[in-house]
């Protein structure tokens, strides 16, 4: 007997639930935070929101689960498609949701250039530390030394700190939160959906893959979640840690926050000159 309903469900296509995500996959938690942000902003219908995603587990969040227009595009190409949508109809709020592989590996160039252009998009990157959909291979975010199917002797590569790289571009807003920092995450969503409404807004969510990261550590998703509550700390605090302690913690927080004109503002300004 279901008497009450989860607040998220009104934003979801119920007919396709439960989701195809693994039991305990953190993607669903990110959805909760996002939907709660919408609810707290008083936005109950997403018909003016367009969600764009690439290929990967996290890319399935909008397609088909979010009840809104959604474009489930090619692997790595969500940002250019989203750019096309936004430029063609600036009335729409365009939100990209994707994985670390999708947005930072194969799609890294688009991420970089959209951030440089301060393109008017919200981008949510779920960093689960691996390629989940293709069964847990190393991603550019995989910690050095980690064993995965493509790094059987340990990962030789240094991982990418995506949020801090993007913070070093022209983007308006850049933050990172662990999935365990639910309230911060939700508030970050509120910030980019309700306050800073232009330019490039990037939120990285640190959310290790239940099946291919957490299970390999012989942990349950619940245990890991509790662990993350200690692992994830504010970056100011993190920076004060001794080097060795740093590697054991994830620095989180808002790395950049501005409200300068986005690409569309700049473009319109040039065109306006033409009309005069």
């Amino acid at each position: 007997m279901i008497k009450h309903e989860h607040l998220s469900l009104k934003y979801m296509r119920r007919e396709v639930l439960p989701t195809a995500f693994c039991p305990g996959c953190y993607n669903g938690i990110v959805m909760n935070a996002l939907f709660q942000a919408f609810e707290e902003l008083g936005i109950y219908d997403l018909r003016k929101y367009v969600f764009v995603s690439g290929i990967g587990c996290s890319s399935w969040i909008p397609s088909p689960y979010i009840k809104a227009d959604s474009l489930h595009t090619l692997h790595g190409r969500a940002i250019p498609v989203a750019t096309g949508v936004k430029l063609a109809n600036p009335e729409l709020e365009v939100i990209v949701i994707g994985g670390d592989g999708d947005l930072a590996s194969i799609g890294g160039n688009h991420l970089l250039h959209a951030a440089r252009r301060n393109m008017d998009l919200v981008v949510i990157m779920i960093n689960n530390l691996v390629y989940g959909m293709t069964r847990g291979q190393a991603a550019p975010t995989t910690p050095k030394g980690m064993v995965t199917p493509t790094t059987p002797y340990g990962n030789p590569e240094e991982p990418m700190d995506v949020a801090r790289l993007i913070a070093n571009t022209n983007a308006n807003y850049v933050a990172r939160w662990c999935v365990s920092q639910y309230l911060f995450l939700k508030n970050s969503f509120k910030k980019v959906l309700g306050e800073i409404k232009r330019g490039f807004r990037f939120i990285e969510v640190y959310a290790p893959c239940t099946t291919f990261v957490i299970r390999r550590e012989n942990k349950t998703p619940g245990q890991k979640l509790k662990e993350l509550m200690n692992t994830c700390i504010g970056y100011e605090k993190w920076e004060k840690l001794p080097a060795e302690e740093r590697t054991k913690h994830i620095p989180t927080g808002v790395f950049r926050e501005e409200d300068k004109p986005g690409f569309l503002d700049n473009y319109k300004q040039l065109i306006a000159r033409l009309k005069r």
Partner: protein
Amino acid sequence: MGKTYVVDVNGLLCKGCGICSEICPRKALVMDSVNPATGYPNPKLVGECIGCKLCMWFCPDQAIVVVEKR
């Protein structure tokens, strides 16, 4: 203060991941036996719920709802 809560579980959405029961600060939820409709166990409220909603936020499958009893 003195509020009591009900915890509703949607057995068709729950995938038995156990996050809710592990995250509950009061250890108020335990995993029940397998739900034949899905093949997964569901959580069951066995202790006192303080309405913190952690289980609800962190349930990845929108399967658990915490409501104040009126």
